[in-house]
């Protein structure tokens, strides 16, 4: 299956197979007016199977949100059809407005303007807790 290479834009590569659509939604890629290719279950020598997202425009990617969903993904920046930068994604220490606190007693339930902030409290188990009430986020 062929998808045209992009001139200037971003490729999110090495996405764990099955997480492509979630990342597409999380990064609000449906709101872009450029062409976006979401390739699911592409074959990969390293991973066996992977998802890939190609965005034909240079946009700011929320690396924290991406890192939370899939810390193994990589970002490739392309300008004039050439790769100018590769970035690895890591599990972020802090997530702002990526997750919502589900605790009905949390201050964020009554104060709508507060950002929903989650902090990485147990990196080995990928546990995030609400900064305000310490409620655990539903794990990915």
């Amino acid at each position, binding site marked *: 299956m062929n998808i045209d290479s992009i001139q200037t834009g971003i490729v999110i590569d090495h996405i764990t197979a099955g997480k492509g659509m979630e990342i597409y939604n999380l990064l609000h890629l449906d709101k872009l007016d450029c062409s976006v290719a979401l390739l699911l279950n592409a074959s990969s020598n390293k991973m066996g199977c992977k998802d890939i997202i190609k965005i034909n425009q240079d946009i700011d990617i929320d690396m924290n949100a991406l890192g939370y969903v899939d810390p193994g993904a990589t970002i490739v920046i392309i300008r004039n059809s050439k790769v100018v930068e590769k970035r690895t994604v890591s599990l972020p220490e802090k997530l702002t407005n990526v997750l919502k606190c589900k605790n009905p*007693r949390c*201050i964020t339930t009554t*104060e709508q303007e507060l950002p929903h902030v989650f902090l990485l409290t147990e990196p080995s188990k990928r546990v995030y807790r609400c900064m305000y009430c*310490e409620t655990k986020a539903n794990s990915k």
Partner: protein
Amino acid sequence: MRSLISILDLSVEELDELIGVANDIIDNPAKYSEICRGKKLATLFFEPSTRTRLSFEAAMYELGGNVLSVTGAGSSSAAKGESVADTAKTVSCYADIIAMRHSKEGAPLVASMNATIPVINAGDGGHNHPTQTLADLLTIRREKGRLDNLTIGLCGDLKFGRTVHSLIEAMARYTGVKFVLISPEELKLPSYVKSIIKEKNIPYVQTTDLEAAMPDLDILYMTRVQRERFFNEEDYLRLKDSYILTPDKLNNAKADLCIMHPLPRVNEISVAIDNDPRAAYFKQVLNGKYMRMALICKLLEVL
């Protein structure tokens, strides 16, 4: 400018320092009677409380300071829809330090992020109550002479009991501590608090049998099943009388057991135990005032 939101905001060394100051206040009250002259404490209590608010206010008066008080969300600007952040910014213009109780978890943290003066968490929902823990630590130190090498029984509502959670966080930092967690199945310690114990490889026992656990205990910390933490009245009624401490249950207890309770009590400790020399819960109340005095002095940097 520092605030106290969680007991873990204080290092073990700082806890020792506060306990030292509190003991000095007990021994030399006159030395501290004017130390906060000209300073104002704002007590913002958006959830019902008698003893904690009075304790803070008594503490400030005994330090020679003054108190501005708000009680109940209904009588404050919160009823008009003011945010915690705006309240904190506003009160910062009037007072030198804030003590805040709020039913919403995290509200004092939000206040501390927006205030220009120190904020003390005086209880936020079922989350944290660090000054109760300060009272507990001073009581344990004064009654047992140490904070390490103790077997601590925690009994009652371990699920919603914020005093229990904070005490575990604080005591888990001392060596030789062992926890005995006594509760009905429905009110067991939440996993995130238990993980604190597990991570530090602290020995613990989980049981529903108070009497069987009694002989091992150096400290028995009783808690009330709190009606206000339940969404369902039926669950509250079913669980409220799970553990009632009566004199006969103390037959196998150590002679130097220290019986504690954050108060208020409903019926979980029989009044017949009040005159037992092992009952320390009213001393805890007094110790709470001294620790709040020490804390106010530290946060206002008047020592």
